[in-house]
C-alpha cells in the first residue's frame, strides 16, 4: 500500500477519534495543525493504528515523528517486516 493509500485508509480512523467527520489528512498533518489531536487522542490514534495494521510501536519509534507522513513511512516499514 503506498503512502497516499495509507493516508486515505487512516482518514476514517482519525475522523472518528478526533470527531471530525469531514477530516482530510495530508503528509504534513500533525498534532500542531489538526484540531483535537491532543495527548489522549494521540494515544487513541496509535492504539487504533496498531489494531488496524496488526503492528506494535515502541515508544522510541513514536517520539521523533514530526507528522503523519513520517508515521506512514513507519507503518509501511512495519507492515513489510
Amino acid at each position, binding site marked *: 500500500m503506498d503512502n497516499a493509500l495509507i493516508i486515505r485508509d487512516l482518514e476514517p480512523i482519525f475522523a472518528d477519534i478526533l470527531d471530525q467527520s469531514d477530516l482530510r489528512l495530508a503528509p504534513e498533518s500533525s498534532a500542531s495543525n489538526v484540531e483535537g489531536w491532543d495527548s*489522549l487522542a494521540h*494515544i*487513541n490514534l*496509535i*492504539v487504533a493504528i*496498531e*489494531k488496524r495494521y496488526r503492528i*506494535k*510501536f*515502541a*515508544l522510541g*519509534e*513514536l517520539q521523533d515523528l514530526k507528522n503523519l507522513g513520517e508515521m506512514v513511512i513507519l507503518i509501511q516499514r512495519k507492515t513489510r517486516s
Partner: protein
Amino acid sequence: MNDYRWNDLATGMAAQFEVELSAEMMSGFATISGDVNPLHADEEFAKAAGFPSRVAFGLLTTSFYSRLVGVYLPGKRALLHGIDVEFRLPAYIGDRLSVSGEVVFLNEAYRRLELKARIRNQAGNVISKASIQAGLRES
C-alpha cells in the same frame, strides 16, 4: 488493592468481584449526580412504568467498572482513559452483581491497556458490557 506493573500484565488476565446494590448507593448517587428522575427515586412511579421496583442508575452500576480498574485490574497505578458502555438490562436494589473484566489489548508504547468487561446480575444475565481504556502510571 492490586498493584500490577506493566510487565505483570498480559492479554487474557482477568478479575472479578461481586457487589450488592443498596438503597444507600442509590441515594448517594442521586445526591452526587442530581438525577432526581422518579424512575430511580419513586417506587410507585417505577411500578406504574412497568418495572418491578426502582431502576438503578445506569451510571451507578457503571461506577463499578471504575472499581474494577482502580482496585483490581490493573489496580493502584491505573488512570482511567475511557469507558464505552452499553446497557442491556435494568438493575434493581438488592441485585447481586458480578463485575468482571479481561485484558484484551496492551499498547506497549504508552502503557495503555484495554479491558472487555461485563456486569451480570444474580441470574447470570448481562446488565451491561463495556470496553475500558486505562493507562498504567509508573508511580
